[in-house]
């Protein structure tokens, strides 16, 4: 017993050393150690005792909502709203929710750190041009944009600016503009596209899935599941191109690309939402079949309820459960899927800034959009889990 415990610790130590050594070769010893430290903090955050979580959670909820709301609502409104979040978190949030919130903040910091390391690992830098600037000029540029040569120093400067000034820094490539000024106008565009696509996906998916699930192995079932399989299997830029060819070039009923009116939104959101509509249809179908075999459905029918009330009043909630738990991944997928759809339809959304920033090595733009995307996804996942607990009383205790 003793020996096996020694052996286990020895194995862990060896693994850790190998990890540090493996990381140290490409990114340097200090960065490797810092990465492991970050991982340790992350894991530590998951092990905080309940009392600490109960104290820390509301405070972090305050900080998080303040940071999210301040740019759009101004400091005063943001303070009031965040105070409400603090009170709400303190009074009503369960332990599990608070634990999730305490996990979000170190995750974001670690994400910034890892992204920084990866960007510095990439060949080239934001100041590399065809015309080689003199070393003196480059040093001056680096100093003025806060981009030193070391990844760790950059991380320090970036975090300090983020926490003390609440600023995402200046864009390095687009001169004279801050990252907020670049991403700010693009955020509502991407959000509008995403919300519309998600609504479309849920509506179409539920209709297809539930109608298929009510009559399994009927022709309606085969047709809608065939459509769903096609939606999953075709990459969405192929679907998008086909839609453009049919609706915009042949029939000329919708614009080819661009942004401005509601009509511009129709094709992109269908393109973006279709694969998720397909997944949702499959989930809803399975959920419906499972629910319809339950005893309470038999009871509802035995009471003499008309079929539509059996379905809408009793079966729907059960059929929705698997769909709701898929909404988190779906929203994340739609957000990142918008990279492709935005570039296909020429939409001025956030995706283009991230891709452009990544190709141009515009460090602050990449980090800014990374933070934004990750926050959106985590917050949305939290909301989805809350909705799930509300729908299914069986998991309410665990959340």
């Amino acid at each position, binding site marked *: 017993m003793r020996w096996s415990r020694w052996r286990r610790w020895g194995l862990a130590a060896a693994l850790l050393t190998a990890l540090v050594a493996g990381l140290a070769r490409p990114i340097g010893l200090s960065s490797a150690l810092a990465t492991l430290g970050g991982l340790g903090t*992350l*894991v530590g955050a*998951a*092990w905080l005792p309940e009392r600490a979580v109960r104290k820390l959670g509301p405070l972090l909820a305050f900080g998080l909502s303040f940071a999210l709301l301040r740019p759009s609502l101004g400091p005063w409104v943001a303070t009031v709203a965040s105070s409400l979040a603090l009170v709400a978190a303190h009074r009503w949030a369960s332990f599990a929710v608070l634990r999730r919130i305490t*996990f*979000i903040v170190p*995750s974001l910091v*670690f*994400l910034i750190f890892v*992204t920084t390391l*990866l*960007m510095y*690992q*990439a*060949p*080239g830098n934001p100041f590399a041009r065809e015309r080689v600037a003199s070393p003196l000029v480059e040093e001056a540029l680096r100093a003025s944009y806060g981009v030193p040569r070391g990844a760790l120093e950059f991380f320090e400067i970036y975090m300090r600016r983020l926490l003390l000034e609440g600023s995402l820094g200046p864009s390095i490539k687009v001169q004279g503009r801050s990252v907020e000024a670049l991403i700010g106008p693009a955020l509502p565009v991407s959000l509008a596209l995403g919300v519309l696509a998600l609504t479309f996906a849920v509506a179409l998916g539920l209709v297809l899935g539930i109608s298929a699930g009510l009559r*399994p*192995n009927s022709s309606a*079932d*085969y047709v809608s*599941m*065939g459509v769903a*399989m*096609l939606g*999953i*299997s*075709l*990459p969405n*830029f*192929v679907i*998008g*191109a*086909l839609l453009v*060819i049919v609706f915009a*070039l042949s029939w000329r009923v919708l614009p*080819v690309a661009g942004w401005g009116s509601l009509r511009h939104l129709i094709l992109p959101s269908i393109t973006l939402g279709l694969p998720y509509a397909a997944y949702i249809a*499959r989930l809803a*179908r*399975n959920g419906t*079949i*499972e629910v319809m075999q339950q005893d309470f459905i038999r009871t509802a029918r035995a009471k003499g309820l008309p079929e539509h009330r059996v379905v809408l009043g009793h079966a729907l909630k059960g059929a929705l459960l698997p769909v709701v738990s898929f909404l988190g991944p779906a929203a*994340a997928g739609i*957000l*990142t*899927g918008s*990279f*492709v759809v935005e*570039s*296909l339809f020429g939409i001025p959304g956030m995706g283009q800034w*991230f*891709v452009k920033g*990544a*190709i141009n090595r515009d460090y602050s733009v*990449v980090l800014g959009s*990374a933070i934004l*995307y*990750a926050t959106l*996804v*985590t917050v949305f*996942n939290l909301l989805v889990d809350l909705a799930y607990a509300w729908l299914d009383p069986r998991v309410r205790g665990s959340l």
Partner: protein
Amino acid sequence: MSTLDAPQPPTGLSPGQQALRRLRQNRFALLGGVLLLAIFAACFLVPLVFGLDATSVQPEYRHQPPSWQHLFGTDNVGRDYLARVLIGGQTSLLVGLAATLASVTVGVLVGSVAGYFGGRVDEVLMRLVDFLYGIPYMFLVILIMLMFSETARGEALPVFLALGLVQWLTMARVVRGQVLSLRRREFVLAARLMGSSDARVIAVHVLPNVAGVILVYATLTVPAVIILESFLSFLGLGVKLSWGQLVAEAVSVVNPVRSFWWLLWWPGALLGLTLLSLNYLGDGLRDALDPKTQALAPP
């Protein structure tokens, strides 16, 4: 007499044989498997046998529609499109398989260790998985791709490394869940009492019981990876010649004046067909290996 003529119920079949029997009854899965084999053969054998050349340029034959000379037509500099589509298919399929292999390796390792040891090990690994789930994966892929961007532009290796490294999360979760329920079973206890080491118990006694689930998720990972690769190609970050790349090129020349339909049709159709077959095969395998969900088998 009639009792003798009646088909005898199958007796004494192993679970594997039963699964195979169920799979053989699923027409869609079978059709998917056959199609997949055909596509593989076409992509890897046809260019070899007929000596197709995807790079020779014939400017006088630009944008030719499909004809007997060029079955799939030609592209904007007069390259034979059949050759380009088939050789592009090689990269797409290879990237899909290799990335899936990478993701299965990592996912099974992490998932089985987390599930088998439980407790703190489980907690640490699953927190890591949670963290990675919170990041939109396209991000990680694009960042990892950047690291290789200049040294190996157009090479397939970084692409499948990057894709494999972001695709293992679901596999890890699924395997962990299965192992978690297996480790309390008597045969695992028996193996441990006989003095087997943890590694041996996992490899010999636990993992074979999870093999079905692993196979199913691997089959469903391949299409996911191929789609991801085509996204990357579309954004200009992918492998040089793949289906995604060809579709992206075709989309960029879509215009209202002249339609080059064959440029979009061939790679798009083959890509869609491959993914369709893989998805049907994966669904079929899941239904075959997990009889509980058989009643819910999607058509």
